[in-house]
């Protein structure tokens, strides 16, 4: 920078510093503040009133009387085995859904990354095209497809392949289908971003050194795509654990997912404190993978330099 413009420089610098603060402000406003509110509610007692929980800070006629906090809601969660089972079941369903997304998304991302640039863009557009329609509508559409009198069953019966409709809706199968369908793009995009950067010479080099195609893929492409795999899996897994819409619309009565429990506690039992405790515990369960994801990302950025 020339000597003539030091003012300009520090000015720009100051603005840059402010811009850097923006994400923190965002986090503060839209993550930390709501979280603190939820945390506050989770240590309250339910009351039949508006709002339906006790206040954290108690005020009397003579002024401030102290903090009213209880851990009963958490104790309740841990004592009642029901919640533990549902947490585990949610984690399991999200994990299986994530694995299915990975198995389906990896070949797709790999294929797209190996196409000519023009074709790549068309295929990527196809991957993100469903986002242009409301998520809720798309999940609803599956009801029309999977229904006992839905498109698929009617067609199979019409073709004479089956004579009784297959039960495809309101069970775990439908939930997995919904998760894979809804979250596949979140798997494909980070994988693609990773695979697209791979140097094609590396596979040729592996072949040159005696590795067959598949061996070269396992030895070279797969380990180098680990950051993409981790990124994609977390982007699918984290929202899938707390998913409400899919199990609510496509799942059966026996589909246990924490999102539905949360809904029921809030809107059916109107027990806001317990519902808040459920979501605080859920958040804590997910913080670990999020932190892991951030570390992987940081490492990848380092390597990309």
């Amino acid at each position, binding site marked *: 920078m020339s000597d003539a413009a030091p003012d300009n420089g520090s000015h720009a610098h100051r603005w840059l510093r402010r811009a850097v603060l923006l994400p923190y402000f965002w986090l503060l406003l839209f993550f930390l503040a709501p979280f603190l509110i939820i945390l506050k509610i989770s240590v309250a007692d339910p009351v039949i009133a508006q709002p339906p929980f006790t206040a954290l800070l108690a005020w009397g006629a003579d002024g401030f009387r102290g903090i009213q906090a209880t851990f009963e809601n958490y104790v309740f969660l841990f004592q009642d085995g029901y919640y533990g089972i549902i947490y585990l079941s949610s984690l399991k369903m999200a994990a299986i859904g994530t694995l299915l997304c990975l198995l389906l998304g990896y070949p797709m991302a790999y294929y797209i990354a190996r196409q000519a640039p023009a074709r790549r863009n068309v295929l990527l557009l196809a991957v993100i095209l469903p986002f242009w329609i409301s998520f809720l509508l798309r999940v609803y559409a599956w009801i029309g497809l999977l229904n006992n009198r839905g498109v698929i069953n009617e067609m199979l019966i019409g073709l004479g392949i089956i004579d009784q409709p297959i039960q495809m809706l309101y069970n775990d199968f439908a939930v997995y289908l919904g998760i894979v369908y809804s979250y596949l793009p979140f798997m494909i995009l980070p994988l693609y971003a990773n695979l697209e950067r791979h*140097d094609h*010479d*590396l596979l*040729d*080099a*592996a*072949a*040159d*050194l*005696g*590795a*067959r195609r598949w*061996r070269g893929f396992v*030895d*070279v492409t797969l*380990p*180098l795509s680990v950051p993409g795999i981790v990124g994609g899996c977390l982007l699918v897994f984290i929202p899938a654990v707390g998913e409400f819409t899919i199990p609510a619309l496509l799942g059966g009565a026996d589909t246990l997912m924490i999102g539905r429990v949360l809904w029921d506690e809030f809107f059916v039992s109107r027990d806001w404190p317990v519902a808040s405790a459920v979501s605080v515990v859920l958040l804590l369960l997910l913080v670990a993978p999020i932190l892991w994801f951030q570390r992987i990302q940081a490492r990848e950025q380092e*390597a990309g330099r």
Partner: protein
Amino acid sequence: MNTVKSDEPKPVLVEIREVSKKFGDVVAVDAVSLDILKGELFAILGSSGCGKTTLLRMLAGFEHPTSGRILIDGADMTDVPPYERPVNLMFQSYALFPHMTVEQNVAYGLKKEGVPAAQIRERVAEMLALVKLEALAGRKPEKLSGGEKQRVALARALVKRPKLLLLDEPLAALDRKLREHTQFELANLQYQLGTTFVVVTHDQDEAMTLASRIAVMSEGRIAQVGTPGQVYEFPANRYVAGFVGNINLIDGRVTRSSGGRVSLQCDALGAELSVLSEDPIGAGSSTCIAVRPEKITISREAPNGKDRNVLKGTVWDLAYFGDQSLYRVRLQSGAVLQVSAQNLRRSAKLTVEWDDEVFLSWDIASTVLLRS
């Protein structure tokens, strides 16, 4: 620097027979036939798009010839996949595996071959010592300099003891100083190991200094095969003459041809020039002659001596390089010839300067008669 040549003829290692490669309608390699001898350092020289890389990739097995056969050590390799060929390639990008250490990179090929672990360790250590990388065995490629990467790539390709080592622009990614040094190292290593090297390059200096023989490629075909000396002093055609080194190309029409001596009328120079030719050439046929800048003597006095072509002109441009000077001399006809002169005497003042009237002369035996 050419490797020492013994008089006995070397056996042929690679036979390329009438190999063609088409990509759609584009003919990348056009009916190329070539023999590469055991233990030689062979260079394939050509500008980008001449088909040299495609030819290399066919030797490595990454491309399948549209027609023709490739034999290595007598065995037909045309349909053999790259992972089963006794051939290794050093990639221009080096293509080092970024998630493996230097040692793991070098060991990779031996592992795939199923060599016992103890032997792998031994051979990798030996190879790392050869390229002087023992100290860096545990490093990842991202922590290496360009020259170090190049040596890892070389070690990784050589550790499998291939019959044929292919090198794709081996020095292109190095800076100038390092390139000169590496050139010598590479040639030494080749001499030490006796492995057949085929170097693909667009850099004529690289080909000239490294190789014992050069194939010049143009538009998918071999324009000439020969030692660096043959290619430089006896270019087979206009393309080779123009591509390798500096040269003055002069068009002319044959006026007389007798007793191995051909005279040409060169309209562009407004002069008649002579050239030696063993083959008789009919009067009236148009042809082209070529003379290298260093073959031409520049002087202010009229030169004497017979069997010389002599022209008169004015120094139009002059570049001083210290060891030599390059003159561009404009003839009366307006044509410009390049002349280079060694600065043998130590003097700050050149004997021939800008705008001097000069005589250019050269031995008629130094003139190349180019056909077609």
